[in-house]
């Protein structure tokens, strides 16, 4: 049974087309990933489904027209944006109570919903003092208010560190097990493999592929000779570790994720061995396509 039906969706900002003639459906209980480079139209698509942007074409959720019945549609959707901004004047409990009341729910729902995401002990804490991971978990709690039919998540782990990301993905994994319908955008292929049964590959606002994670991986990465290794070390060791790797001929850099090294597919562990032997403290690592 189709929960979401999108027909000939087109969205332009001025003369720039951001979404071009998209048509697809999503069935109840399925987890769908939106994948594509920056500017592909993933966020715009999610905002159109929420009825936050005017668009051409038709979007229907559970039979309701987003353009005509936007308020009703939004009652059926839980949304987690990429970077959540909460009201700085409210604490965690007040925030949940406020958004519960906006959805016509009892404000006493705050405690059980916070227990669900492991934030019950933070109920009196001001939202401005929450860590990035806690904020995303609070956003997930708010998205789950009223048990919506569809969860939309816009790069929900983009601003999280490795630990928080892994923790957040565990919550999403449990929602997947419960059969919740999810549509999420991401840049990380491992998240797609972990959560999604279907991938919509967007590029320049067009739906380039509607496929499975396995097939997309085959199509995109078969020919790739290199992978990206992200290393987490104590910040004070970053510069020296970078020098060590570059001296050995590796293409490496420091960015917000830590130390990132381009490694040949058949020698992925080499930087780990080199740094370990040189006495660096490797806290964690991730491998990306």
């Amino acid at each position, binding site marked *: 049974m189709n929960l979401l039906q999108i027909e000939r969706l087109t969205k332009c900002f001025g003369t720039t087309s951001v979404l071009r003639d998209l048509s697809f459906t999503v069935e109840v209980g399925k987890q769908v990933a939106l994948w594509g480079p920056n500017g592909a139209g993933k966020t715009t698509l999610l905002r159109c489904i*929420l009825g*936050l*942007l*005017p668009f051409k074409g038709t979007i229907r959720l559970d*039979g*309701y027209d987003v353009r005509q*019945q*936007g*308020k*009703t549609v*939004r*009652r*059926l*959707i839980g*949304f987690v*944006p990429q*970077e*959540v*901004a*909460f*009201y700085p*004047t409210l604490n965690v409990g007040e925030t949940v109570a*406020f*958004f519960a*009341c*906006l*959805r*016509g729910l009892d404000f006493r729902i705050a405690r059980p919903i916070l227990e669900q995401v492991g934030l019950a002990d933070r109920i009196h804490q001001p939202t401005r003092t929450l860590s990035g991971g806690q904020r995303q978990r609070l956003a997930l709690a708010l998205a789950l208010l009223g048990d919506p039919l569809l969860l939309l998540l816009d790069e929900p782990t983009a601003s999280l560190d490795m630990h928080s990301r892994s923790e957040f993905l565990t919550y999403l994994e449990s929602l997947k097990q419960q059969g919740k319908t999810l549509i999420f955008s991401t840049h990380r292929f491992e998240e797609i493999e972990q959560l999604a049964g279907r991938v919509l590959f967007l590029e320049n606002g067009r739906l380039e592929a509607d496929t499975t994670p396995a097939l997309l991986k085959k199509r995109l990465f078969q020919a790739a000779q290199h992978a990206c290794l992200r290393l987490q070390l104590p910040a004070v060791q970053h510069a020296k570790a970078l020098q060590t790797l570059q001296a050995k001929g590796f293409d490496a850099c420091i960015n917000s994720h830590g130390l990132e090294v381009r490694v040949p597919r058949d020698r992925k562990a080499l930087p780990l061995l080199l740094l370990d032997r040189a006495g660096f403290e490797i806290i964690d690592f991730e491998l990306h396509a």
Partner: protein
Amino acid sequence: MRKAMLSSPSLAPEIVGLLARKELHDALRNRWFMLYTLVFTLLTLVLSWMGLASGQRYGLVGFGRTTASLINLVMLVVPLMGLTLGALSLAIEREQGTLLYVLAQPITAAEVLLGKLLGLAMALTATLSIGFGLSGLLLAWQGSTVGVGAFIGLLGLSILLSIFSLSLGLLFSGALPRTAAALGSALFAWLLLVFLGDLGLLGSVLVLHMPIEQLFVLSLLNPLQVFKFTAILLLQGDLQVLGPAGQYAMHTYGWHLLPLSIGLLGLWAFLPLLPAYLFFRQRGAL
């Protein structure tokens, strides 16, 4: 059955009330709001004290002198308070990202706009009530009771003026993408309404040799002028003090003038809401 339960009105009073309470909660913690309340209260107390001091010298004690002084204070300060608070409200939330999150909930742009207006209007009513209340207590403590009706009436008119200023501020906030642009436009509108409007009117009369009736109609285009002559009507019962235009208005409309002018100010109070809604619905959280 489920579909019937899910259908939502586009303007639900409980949602507007919830957003208004949230706005009031935030306004009472806003340092601009605190500063405005403090300044307005201090100025009303100073004006009341000065009115009392000069009145007692001539054996006069009453609300009338203070009410007359407060008209100018309200015309200067209340539009500034309303315009800036209104202009900041949506624009700041848009920049912070909270507006996107709120609009992703089952609510409409009209509910957000009305909730904000109601909440901010309650906050400004509290500011005005504190200023007028303390001033009234000071006058009553000195034994004045004469002219108390006009004094309370001025409070009512000031509330209407604050709603107009908030609505206009919300128009800038809803239409412009950046806080700085919304705030700049609000300050320019304040300047236009308070100072340049008067000068423009005066200049037009001199240059165009405008007849009295046209001058009167033109003055109605500035809600601050409407506030001024309504307040004077409340205080004195006629508009002689405004010269030929005032005499023309009294002669033409007679005793209808007061209810008409209150109605006009009420209309002005909510008029900017329509374009504010249209712009806000179009721009949304972006």
